[in-house]
C-alpha cells in the first residue's frame, strides 16, 4: 500500500441548531477530536450544511492543507452529497469525506442522557477519523443512457406519465395487462367533486396516447423479466394473443353481434355479460377486439361477420418483445376489496348488497342496466339505499389503513342517486367523514342540502341481515354513544377498501422493488422522495404506491415523468463508485460471490484461459455480501473494504 502523503484530517462538528448541541456537548467533542491521530484541525459550527458552514470547511481545507474531512452531523442520507460537493470545490476528491451521525444516533435517540450521548458522539467521531485515514480517492463510474422509457400500467397515472414524457420528446412504451388502457377511471361514472363524466375527461387522453408518435402502446401484455440498471434496462414483455389482428381490426363490432357466447363481464364487475369476442367498453383504446378462447366455441361466425377485412386470426401465438429503456415508471394501480370474507356485510350472500364499484357500473349509462339503479332481487329501483363506510379499510384484521377516497365516492354516488331518483331515501353510515382537499367539503355540504342523511356509527359494531321475503336489508349498528340503531333499506352499498393490485408482489420481484406492510410499493422516502424507489431509474406513480384519488394520480404520473426525464435527458450517468472491485490476481473464479449476489451484478467469466469474477458496477449496490463470502479476499467494496472497516472497528473498542 502506498501512502505518499501525510494524513491531515479536519473534523467539523455541527450543532444543528439545538438538535445536536442541545444534548451533546459539541465543544467537548471538538476538543476530543483534536487529540485523535491524524487530526490537524477541528471546529464546531451552528449549521455545517449552511453557506457559512460550507465556507468554513473550504477555508480550513486551504489553511490547514487538509486531505481528509470528517463531518459529525446528521445522517449521510441527508447531507453526504452536500459535503462531497463542498470538498470537491475546495480541490479534494469527493470520496475523501467521512460522516459521523451524531444527530440520529446520539442527540435524538439519547435526548435524556446528555453525558452518554456526548461520549457516544466522541466514539463515533473517533471511528470516523479512523476510517477516514484509510479512504482512497475514487472516480465516479459513467454509464451510457438509453433515452426511452417504459410505463407499466395504463391507468390515469400511467397515461399522465406517458403523455408527459412523450411531450418532452422521449420515446415511451406503455404496457398494460388489460385489453384497453384507461384503468379504473374508465369504469367510473362521474368524478367528485365536480361531477365530470369520467370517461369524457379520460377518453381524450386515452386517444392522445394512441395517436402520439412517441408512444408505443402495448396492451394485453405482461412484463416478464427486467434486467440491467438505471439508464440501461432490458425488459421482456409477453404480449398475449388477441386472435384478432390489430392492424386489420376496424373496431366495427360486427363480430360481437354475431358471437353467440355470453361471458360474465369482468369490466362490469360481473353484473352483466359480454361476448366471447368483444372490447371491454366502446371507448376502449386500442379499439381492437379480443377473442376469449377459454369460452369461444370456434363456430367462426365472427370470421364470417368480419368478411373481407380478415382481421380474425386463430393461429396467433403469444409474442415476446424485448424493450431497451433507460427508466421505468410503475403505475399498476389497485384492486377493490370484495368483502366475501366478512360475514357482517352478507356480500355474496344477500342479493341487494353491492360494492361501490358495482354501484358505479350501475350508474354508467353504458353499463349493464343502462344507468338505472336496479336491485338484483326484483329489478326495481330501490326506495331506500344505505352506503356503509370503511368496509375493510381501517380494520386491523384486514386493511388497517384509510383508503382515503371512500368518503368522497360514497357522497358522490349518493348525490348521483338522489339526482336520478329524488324520492329515494339515501343514508350514509360513516365513522369519520374525511373531506380534505379542494372543493370536497363544499361537496359534502351539498350532499347534506340534498337531504342525504349522515349517521355516525361504530367502526366495528355493524351487522346486515336480510328479510328473506322482501329481500330488504336490516342494518344493525351502534352509534358513538353506544345506542343501537336499526335501519331497513332496500339496497346497501359497501364502500370497500382499495387494496394492492393482484400480482404486485410478483412485479416487485421482477423489478427488484420492495413492498410495504400494506402490500403497496415502497417509495424511497415517504415525504421527500415519494416517486422514487430504492432501485435507481424505477419510479412509482398512482395507487400502486398507496390509495389516492385521480388528481393525485395524475400529479404523480407527471412527477414520475419528470424524474424519468432527469435520467433520459443525460447522455451518460455517473454512478457511485462505492461498489465491489475484484483483485484479479487473487481471484480463483470459484463463483461463490456470484451465488450470493442478490442483484445479479457478478458473473464469473473465462478470460485468458482462467476464470475470474467480473462486477457489473452499475448493478452493484455495494452491499458487501460477496466480500464476506470470498475465500481469498479478492473482492472488496471500495472504501468499505476490510482495511477501512477494520480500522473503524478497532477504533470502536479502543478508546
Amino acid at each position, binding site marked *: 500500500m502506498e501512502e505518499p502523503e501525510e494524513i491531515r484530517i479536519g473534523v467539523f462538528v455541527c450543532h444543528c441548531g439545538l438538535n445536536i448541541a442541545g444534548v451533546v456537548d459539541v465543544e467537548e467533542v471538538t476538543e476530543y477530536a483534536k487529540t485523535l491521530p491524524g487530526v490537524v484541525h477541528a471546529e464546531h459550527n451552528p449549521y455545517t450544511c449552511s453557506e457559512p458552514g460550507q465556507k468554513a470547511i473550504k477555508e480550513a481545507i486551504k489553511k490547514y492543507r487538509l486531505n481528509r474531512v470528517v463531518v459529525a452531523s446528521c445522517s449521510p442520507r441527508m447531507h453526504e452529497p452536500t459535503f462531497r460537493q463542498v470538498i470537491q470545490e475546495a480541490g479534494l476528491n469527493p470520496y475523501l469525506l467521512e460522516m459521523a451521525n451524531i444527530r440520529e444516533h446520539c442527540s435524538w435517540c439519547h435526548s435524556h442522557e446528555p453525558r452518554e450521548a456526548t461520549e457516544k458522539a466522541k466514539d463515533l467521531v473517533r471511528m470516523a477519523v479512523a476510517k477516514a485515514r484509510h479512504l482512497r480517492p475514487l472516480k465516479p463510474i459513467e454509464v451510457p443512457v438509453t433515452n426511452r422509457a417504459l410505463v407499466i400500467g395504463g391507468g390515469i397515472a400511467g397515461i399522465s406519465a406517458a403523455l408527459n414524457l412523450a411531450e418532452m420528446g422521449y420515446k415511451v412504451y406503455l404496457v398494460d395487462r388489460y385489453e384497453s388502457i384507461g384503468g379504473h377511471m374508465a369504469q367510473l361514472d362521474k368524478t367528485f367533486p365536480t361531477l365530470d363524466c369520467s370517461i369524457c375527461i379520460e377518453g381524450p387522453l386515452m386517444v392522445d396516447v394512441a395517436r402520439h408518435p412517441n408512444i408505443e402502446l402495448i396492451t394485453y401484455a405482461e412484463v416478464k423479466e427486467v434486467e440491467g440498471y438505471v439508464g440501461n434496462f432490458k425488459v421482456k414483455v409477453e404480449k398475449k394473443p388477441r386472435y384478432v389482428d390489430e392492424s386489420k381490426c376496424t373496431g366495427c363490432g360486427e363480430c360481437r353481434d354475431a358471437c353467440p357466447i355470453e361471458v360474465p363481464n369482468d369490466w362490469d364487475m360481473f353484473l*352483466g355479460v359480454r361476448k366471447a369476442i368483444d372490447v371491454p367498453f366502446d371507448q376502449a383504446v386500442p379499439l381492437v377486439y379480443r377473442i376469449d378462447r377459454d369460452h369461444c366455441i370456434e363456430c367462426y361466425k365472427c370470421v364470417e361477420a368480419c368478411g373481407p377485412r380478415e382481421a380474425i386470426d386463430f393461429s396467433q401465438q403469444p409474442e415476446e418483445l424485448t424493450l431497451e429503456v433507460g427508466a421505468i415508471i410503475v403505475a399498476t394501480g389497485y384492486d377493490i376489496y370484495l368483502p366475501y370474507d366478512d360475514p357482517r356485510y352478507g356480500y355474496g350472500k344477500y342479493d341487494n348488497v353491492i360494492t361501490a364499484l358495482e354501484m358505479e357500473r350501475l350508474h354508467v349509462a353504458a353499463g349493464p342496466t343502462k344507468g338505472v339503479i336496479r336491485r338484483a332481487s326484483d329489478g326495481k329501483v330501490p326506495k331506500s339505499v344505505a352506503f356503509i363506510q370503511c368496509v375493510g379499510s381501517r380494520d386491523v384484521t384486514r386493511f388497517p389503513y384509510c383508503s382515503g377516497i371512500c368518503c368522497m365516492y360514497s357522497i358522490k354516488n349518493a348525490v348521483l342517486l338522489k339526482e336520478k331518483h329524488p324520492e329515494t331515501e339515501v343514508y350514509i353510515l360513516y365513522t369519520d367523514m374525511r373531506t380534505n382537499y379542494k372543493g370536497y367539503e363544499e361537496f359534502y355540504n351539498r350532499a347534506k342540502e340534498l337531504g342525504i342523511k349522515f349517521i355516525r356509527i361504530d367502526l366495528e359494531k355493524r351487522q346486515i341481515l336480510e328479510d328473506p321475503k322482501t329481500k330488504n336489508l336490516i342494518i344493525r349498528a351502534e352509534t358513538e354513544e353506544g345506542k343501537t340503531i336499526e335501519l331497513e333499506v332496500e339496497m346497501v352499498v359497501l364502500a370497500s377498501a382499495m387494496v394492492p393490485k393482484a400480482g404486485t408482489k410478483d412485479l416487485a420481484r421482477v423489478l427488484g422493488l420492495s413492498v410495504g406492510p400494506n402490500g403497496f410499493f415502497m417509495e424511497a422516502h415517504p415525504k421527500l422522495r415519494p416517486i422514487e424507489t430504492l432501485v435507481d431509474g424505477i419510479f412509482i406513480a398512482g395507487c400502486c404506491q398507496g390509495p389516492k384519488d385521480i388528481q393525485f394520480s395524475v400529479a404523480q404520473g407527471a412527477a414520475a415523468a419528470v424524474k424519468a426525464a432527469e435520467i433520459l435527458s443525460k447522455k451518460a450517468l455517473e454512478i457511485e463508485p462505492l461498489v465491489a472491485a475484484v483483485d484479479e490476481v487473487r481471484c480463483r473464479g470459484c463463483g461463490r460471490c456470484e451465488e450470493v449476489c442478490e442483484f445479479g451484478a457478478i458473473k464469473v467469466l473465462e478470460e485468458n484461459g482462467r476464470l475470474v469474477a467480473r462486477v457489473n458496477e452499475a448493478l452493484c449496490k455495494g452491499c458487501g455480501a460477496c466480500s464476506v463470502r470470498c475465500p481469498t479476499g479478492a473482492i472488496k467494496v471500495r472504501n468499505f473494504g476490510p482495511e477501512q472497516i477494520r480500522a473503524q472497528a478497532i477504533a470502536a473498542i479502543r478508546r
Partner: protein
Amino acid sequence: MPMRIWKTDTPERLVIERRLHVHKHKLELDRTKCVGCELCSLICPREAITVKVPEKNGSEGPRKPVIDVDEEKCQFCGICNCICPFGAIKVLKDGQPIIPVAESESFPRLLREVVVDVSKCPPGCKECEDACPLGLIKVSVVGPDGRELSLEEAKAYPRPEELKVNVEIDLDGCPGCRLCELKCPEGAIRAVKVIHGSIRINTDLCPEGCKDCVDVCPVPGTLTVGPDGKVVVNEVTCVYCGVCRLVCPVEEAIELTRTYIRHEPIKSGAWNKALEKLTSTVHLTRELVAKSMERGQEVVEKRLGWIIARSGS
C-alpha cells in the same frame, strides 16, 4: 350483486343456475328423459359435462350412466341442448328457453321428422301412442260437436268418417326410433331417424350372461337376448345414441359408427368440430365437400345465370 352459481342435483333433475345482477342463466337436465348416452359430453366445448358409468356389482338392475355438469365450467351456450336426441337438456336465459348458439346459427338444431297422415288413422287406434317408448305421442279423437271422445267411444262411433283424429307428437324429445311407424297397422306414420349409422356386436367377446347393453337401451326391441343367450341387434330401431357401448364392460365388443346426423343447414366451425367427434373425420369431410359443392353451384348460377337462362329458353 356479485355473480352467484347454484347447483341442485336430485334423482329427477340437475339444475345449474348462474345469477348475475341483470341476467339469470339456467341449465336443466331432466334425468327422467336422459338415457345417459355420451353425446353432450363428447361435444361440450368447455368439457363441462362428464358421464359416469356405475360400477358393476352383482347383477341387479341396469347400470344407467349418470351425467354431471360442472357448474364452474358451464357457459350456458346451449350446444348440449341442441344435440340431445332425447330433449333432456334445456338452457334458459332470464326464464326464457333461448338457445344462444341456435339463435346465432352457430350450432344447428337437430331435424326431427315424424309425419302422420291422420286421414288413414282409424278412430280408436292408438298403436303409435302405445309403441312410443318415450311417451311422446298422444292420440285424441274429436267428434263433430267438438267433444273429445274416449277411444272406446270412438271405436263404437257409428259414423267414423265424421270423427277427427289428432296425433300430437312432442318432437323435441324424439330421436326417431321408428317404432311408431313400424307398429302402425295402416302405414299412416313415417318417421325419420335423426342419427344414422351402423352397429354390430361381437358376441364372441361378450362376458358370460352379461346383458348390460340390453338393460340400458332406450328403445325396446333394439337389443334383445336371443335364444342362444347372445345379444341380437335390430338395427331398424337403433337411434345410435351409443349408451350400449358406454356401459359395455368389454372394449370393442360393440362397434358403433354414426355416419350422418340430420340437422338444420348451417355453416359453423363448432358444428364441424362436433361432427368430427360424433361421427368421424371421413363423414365430416363428406359433409364439407357436399357443402362446398352446393356453394360452388350457387356461385356458378349467380355468375353464369344469364347464360343458363339463355340456353334454357
